[in-house]
């Protein structure tokens, strides 16, 4: 263990923030779906990996840039999510209790299918700039990380705009805050649920595309990613989008710092200890609401 120099510290901080932005995009859909539907979508990691493979195929077949391919994968996943919610998940009774099992089953099915098609070989999408770095005021910044961060930011801003400024987005927020009152003003909860699920799954597509060029992946990676994104939204407060953003940046920075101060191997341990300590002080997470029964 050794303390880094100021230069290395700032370099690490930059990398951590860049990674954190991508994490935020990956976790945003998960927390949004929980907020509206009180459903923990354990298949979120599998959706990310599915998105990564789709990006991989588009790159292999058409040499399509992973960031450009988001324009294809996002709408496709939106439709997939909508249909999944409308025709499969909406039929589940008491989803609060059974959704974990059902979505876990879906994760296993997707992992199995991907395994049958792609085997367990670790893949990654390597556009021409995949090993390029730019040097900014003596700090080295990998191009893929920077591009991933900027893309994540753009998608999150669009998501924010949809939620804050559109009629449907307002209905989503209203449903999160008080589903009974939302119904009173004429919001159809089933429609909002389908829209939210679709939106959440489509962010996983974008997250998956970024994942494919920054990390290597195989079908079993879905387990790591669902664990990571779940930890993020628990730390941030289940259902809170700003919470997920803050928790993602914390995770990103913490991972990178641990990696240089101790070793990369310790990164998850440090983060989980931090998560547990936070939950002792704030059981609802950083930005979460204390859940109380409404009379």
């Amino acid at each position: 263990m050794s303390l880094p120099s100021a230069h290395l510290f700032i370099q690490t901080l930059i990398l951590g923030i860049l990674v954190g932005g991508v994490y935020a995009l990956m976790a945003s859909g998960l927390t949004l779906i929980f907020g509206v539907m009180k459903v923990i979508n354990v298949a979120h990691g599998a959706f990310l990996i599915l998105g990564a493979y789709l990006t991989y195929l588009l790159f292999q077949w058409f040499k399509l840039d992973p960031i450009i391919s988001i324009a294809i994968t996002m709408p496709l996943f939106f439709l997939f999510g909508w249909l999944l919610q409308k025709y499969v998940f909406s039929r589940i009774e008491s989803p609060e209790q059974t959704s974990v099992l059902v979505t876990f089953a879906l994760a296993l099915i997707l992992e199995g299918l991907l395994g049958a098609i792609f085997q367990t070989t670790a893949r990654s999408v390597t556009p021409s700039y995949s090993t390029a770095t730019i040097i900014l005021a003596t700090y080295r910044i990998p191009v893929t990380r920077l591009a991933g961060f900027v893309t994540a930011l753009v998608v999150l801003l669009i998501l924010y705009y949809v939620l804050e400024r559109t009629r449907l987005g307002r209905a989503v927020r209203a449903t999160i805050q008080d589903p009974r009152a939302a119904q009173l003003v004429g919001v159809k909860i089933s429609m909002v649920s389908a829209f939210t699920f679709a939106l959440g799954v489509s962010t996983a597509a974008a997250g998956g595309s970024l994942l494919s060029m920054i990390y290597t992946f195989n079908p079993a990676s879905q387990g790591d990613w669902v664990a990571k994104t779940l930890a993020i939204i628990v730390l941030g407060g289940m259902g809170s989008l700003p919470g997920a953003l803050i928790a993602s940046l914390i995770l990103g920075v913490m991972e990178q710092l641990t990696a240089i101060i101790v070793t990369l191997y310790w990164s998850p341990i440090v983060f989980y200890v931090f998560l547990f300590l936070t939950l002792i002080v704030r059981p609802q997470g950083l930005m979460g609401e204390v859940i109380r029964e409404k009379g």
Partner: protein
Amino acid sequence: MPMLQLDNVFASYIPGVEILRGVSLRVEQGEIVCLVGPNGAGKSTVLRAVSGFLKPSKGSITFNGKSIGGMPPQKILTEGITHVPQGHSVFPKMTIHENLLMGAFTVMDQKVIEQRLEKVYSLFSWLKIRSKEKAGNLSGGQQKIVEIGRALMLEPPLMILDEPSLGLAPKTMSELFENIRELNRNGLTILMVEQNAREGLASAHRGYVLELGKDKFEGTAKELLDSPEMAKLYLGGSTDEDSYRRRRGRWA
């Protein structure tokens, strides 16, 4: 023809356990009708059946001559009945402005929404002044006004109020009832339930006493308030002196 008419309505939450057992009542255009009665009489349940949150198992509910019994809530809403439920139902993390916009969720015409917004703001001017504040930070009485304002965004012919004064301080409560009477003078028909029967009836034209899921008495608000039997059974007991004697009797 009454605006709203319930005829021998039965309804239950659990099959076989009927909460409403043949309720009949009517609300005429321009009236304030208040439902009173003991806890568990089915007052709120009547309101839920009217606004579609509970399907009646028997009987008919008609609104302006059209049968609405068993219609889904969204449909009944667009027919022109809005429901302000018991307790708090503002969207706490939205601004007052956004709360009002949510009231017009089913309205697509942006011009109409703007007009109605201006109307609500002119009725309750403080809403406009504080339009950017989060509704969750308002006091209980202020939140109730936001809820009523939100319901007004549909320009409903009929508004249903479920215990609007619940949990309000006496002064806030009388202001609220003054607001309700004012809305009524401007043409809004109101069907409400009040746990504070005296206050509720004092603002109403007519009232019904519900007991065990049936309408037991009907009369003008004055008749109900003046009836000694009513006072004894349903208006929270009796004169102050009586209750003082009873309390003394219990403890002495």
